[in-house]
């Protein structure tokens, strides 16, 4: 069965944007941007895991959840900005490949969910979080880890197909 190709024109347009062309035609740009994307993943993973562990009652638990989360917030935002910037460049350089790639669509749908969950739901719980880890707090932390794990794993899997 032919896949629905309603939005293909848009992805073709993405692929022929100036940054898309520049990255695709360079030998070294894609690998270098990809490596920086990976460094962003490390930073995001570290910050998310450190705060989520705290919310689960593990790791750095001698200070309040809100203290830890507030302290690491600039690095969380920095990591997300770095990942979005490099990720957009990688995407533009192979937008049509992504269009036909299931992993890409898994990532494209879970990423906004993870972002909204992190900056709305989790943020609200974390900012008001004291020393204790209620069931609600722990569920939110587990959800955060699961969502980001899915986003990252789907991202890695784009390259395998």
């Amino acid at each position, binding site marked *: 069965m032919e896949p629905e190709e309603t939005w293909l024109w848009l992805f073709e347009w993405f692929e022929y944007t100036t940054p898309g062309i520049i990255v695709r035609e360079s*030998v070294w740009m894609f*690998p270098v941007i*990809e*490596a920086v994307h*990976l*460094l962003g*993943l*490390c*930073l*995001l*993973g*570290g*910050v*998310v*895991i*450190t705060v989520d*562990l705290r919310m689960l009652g*593990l*790791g*750095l*638990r*001698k*200070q309040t959840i809100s*203290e*830890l989360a507030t*302290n*690491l917030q*600039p*690095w969380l935002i920095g990591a997300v900005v770095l990942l979005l910037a490099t990720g957009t460049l990688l995407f533009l350089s192979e937008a049509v490949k992504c269009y036909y790639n299931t992993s890409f669509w898994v990532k494209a749908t879970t990423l906004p969910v993870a972002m909204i969950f992190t900056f709305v739901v989790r943020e609200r719980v974390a900012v008001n979080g004291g020393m204790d880890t209620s069931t609600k707090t722990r569920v939110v932390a587990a959800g955060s880890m699961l969502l*980001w*794990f899915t986003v*990252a*794993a789907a991202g*890695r*899997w784009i390259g*395998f197909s």
Partner: protein
Amino acid sequence: MILDFVAWMNELPWSIALRESRYVWPWVESSHVMTLGLFVGTAFVTDLRLLGWSLKRVRVSEVTDRLLPWTRLGFAGMFVTGFLLFFGYPERYYHNLFFRIKIILLIVAAINVFAFHRGIHKRVAEWDLDPKLPRQAFVAGAISLSVWALIVVTGRMIAYNWFECAIQPQPDFVNWFAQCDGIIKELYGGT
């Protein structure tokens, strides 16, 4: 001797099975990448603390007592999956420029970890919450952050074949550094 060992490993049935597997290989590689978040991620958080760029009101000893076990768990995951990746292509990676740079950087990172724990960290109680940490602690954090970042980058670059021994000609430095001689003879014969 190492060359013989690598050549021997390369022909082991399990090694061949791993590099020819359709599903196991991507799963091992993905696990290696996903564990980065836990290992390098929590190491970065520790480095940020040592650099004084974040968590300034968290005791350094708490970070090394309570976050480090998670970093170690991550490292165990990285090591097991990383060894399996090497086991899948021993000969190819042994002669890979980026793999060799990565191993050297890993040794540098290990020396840094060792020096930190044997050195300034022994007296951590004296400077645990100081607004300005001792110079050695800052330097250890700076080395750790930059060396692990370079390890991630070189690790990613192993997958690209720009400097592969099997693809000649290569710059003299590459042929020397990656010991391409043996591989070239094997592939093309002659000297």
